[in-house]
């Protein structure tokens, strides 16, 4: 069925956890939009680092510390290349994408937004790209505007220029974690800039699955997490345009982010240290670097092609097998979507559905996916969501379909 250039069996073999059997049958992990599994090379890089090279970074002068610093800063360079940023020091390590977005809202937002200023979001944002702005509504009285959705779950850009009129920032996801929709990032950045707004891209779901090029996009900020792209938990990234980061006040205060501290005040260090207060996720940065090496080894173009194939197969299989009994949210055209599917099935509550699928070792998420406004827009409380990654193939789609069938036996009413 697929013409992918990836050998998925070989890829899957590199993920120890996916070799696990639960109750005698293999695991079909379809929750990568939530968090991804880790390949051997990432686990080994972290273990090796802790066994051989762990040391403080950027602080101590001895050789071991210099080695550790090299590995840590080497990871920064890998991130910079992966997203095609201009400068290493535009890459700030955070704890997760949520912190990255909060950093922008707290630091850029507090310095640049006042009562009545407009920030534009979309109706498909994750809570991480909503709540930090709600806080500025409460605190500063800014105004939020929302880009609406079309019925097939794409952004409805009809009134975009009106929405952006007078806006200071446009913050949007590059790919929906619920609908799978990929948004036209370059066009949205251009529209933001035309209106005099900065463009903040939530790349959590996009960066793990596609070639990312912040310069081609002409974006101003990009936030994403390591744990969704085969890397460890505990580390995220904020990339920002140098001029913006330079002009922003600091966010967290403490060690490493200062040039000087006196009893009566402090001055900040240059980028990226300015935004990296305290001891960073050292081992995690090394793991993130290994994850990017792993993905580069597969080739991000291949990853994207593979996921388009799986998405196409999933759409045809599920609709052919279940017809009107299944409702897939989001677009059907795989050119504008990734392999993340939210769906409703025969009126069975998603929570019950995921319980039944779990009985067959099929791991899907049920819930609001941290996108309650979108749920309201879709008119549901929750959806079931199956999300596919580099270690999933069309066979996993078939297993999912079989498991769905079994749900009807219990809830067949």
């Amino acid at each position: 069925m697929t013409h992918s250039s990836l050998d998925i069996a070989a890829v899957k073999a590199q993920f120890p956890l996916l070799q696990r059997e639960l109750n005698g049958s293999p695991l079909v992990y379809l929750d990568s939009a939530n968090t991804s599994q880790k390949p051997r090379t990432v686990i080994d890089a972290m273990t090796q680092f802790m066994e051989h090279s762990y040391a403080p970074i950027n602080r101590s002068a001895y050789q071991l510390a210099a080695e550790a610093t090299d590995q840590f800063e080497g990871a920064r360079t890998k991130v910079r290349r992966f997203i095609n940023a201009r400068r290493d020091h535009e890459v700030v390590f955070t704890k997760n994408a949520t912190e990255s977005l909060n950093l922008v809202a707290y630091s850029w937002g507090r310095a640049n937004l006042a009562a009545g200023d407009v920030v534009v979001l979309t109706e498909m944002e994750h809570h991480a790209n909503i709540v930090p702005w709600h806080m500025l509504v409460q605190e500063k009285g800014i105004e939020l505007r929302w880009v609406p959705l079309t019925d097939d779950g794409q952004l409805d850009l009809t009134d975009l220029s009106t929405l952006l009129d007078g806006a200071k920032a446009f913050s949007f996801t590059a790919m929906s974690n619920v609908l799978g929709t990929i948004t036209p990032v370059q066009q949205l950045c251009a529209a933001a800039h035309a209106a005099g707004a900065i463009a903040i891209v939530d790349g959590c779901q996009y960066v793990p699955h596609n070639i990312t090029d912040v310069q081609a996009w002409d974006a101003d900020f990009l936030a994403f997490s390591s744990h969704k792209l085969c890397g460890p938990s505990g580390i995220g990234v904020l990339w920002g345009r140098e001029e913006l980061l330079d002009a922003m006040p600091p966010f967290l205060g403490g060690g490493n982010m200062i040039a000087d501290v006196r009893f009566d005040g402090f001055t900040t260090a240059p980028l990226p240290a300015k935004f990296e207060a305290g001891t960073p996720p050292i081992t995690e940065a090394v793991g993130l670097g290994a994850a990017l090496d792993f993905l580069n080894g597969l080739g991000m173009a291949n990853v994207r092609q593979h996921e388009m194939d799986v998405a196409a197969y999933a759409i045809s299989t599920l609709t052919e097998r279940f017809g009107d009994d299944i409702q897939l949210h989001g677009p059907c055209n795989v050119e504008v979507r990734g392999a993340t599917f939210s769906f409703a099935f025969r009126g069975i509550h998603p929570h019950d559905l995921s319980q039944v699928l779990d009985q067959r070792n099929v791991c899907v998420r049920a819930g609001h996916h941290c996108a309650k406004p979108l749920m309201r827009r879709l008119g549901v409380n929750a959806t079931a969501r199956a999300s596919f990654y580099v270690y999933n193939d069309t066979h996993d789609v078939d297993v999912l379909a079989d498991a769905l069938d079994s749900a009807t036996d219990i809830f067949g009413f």
Partner: protein
Amino acid sequence: MPGLEDLYREIILDHHRNPRNRGELAPPASHAVGHNPLCGDEIDVYLDVTDGIITDVKVGGQGCSISQSSASMMSQAVKGKPVDEVRALVRRFKGMMSIPDEDGNPIEPDPAVKLGDLEALQGVVKFPVRIKCATLAWNTLLEALEQG
């Protein structure tokens, strides 16, 4: 892994299909909304309390089979009962769900408190993630009582 039949007992599916006491009560009835942040479920509990007796109860909102049937059974179990008895029942029910008391100690089952149909929810304990579904209505009930 325990079998699904432990979770989805027939009586649970019945309450799910035919929920009892659905609806709303107009003010001055007390009203609380409970959220299950895990799955987005919401439950509304409306109470009429007169002279320390729950004279009427209605349940609204949406949820999975466990949260809906638990709410439905809860409404049957508390209707017409004195508030004191209801509080004891909540405690007993939480104990069955392995939820510790305020001080983190296990709740000993009080033999004076009868669970009746609610015993069918016993199987939920084997599925820890679902405990929050089963207790949602009960926590919301407590909140509604606070307001009463």
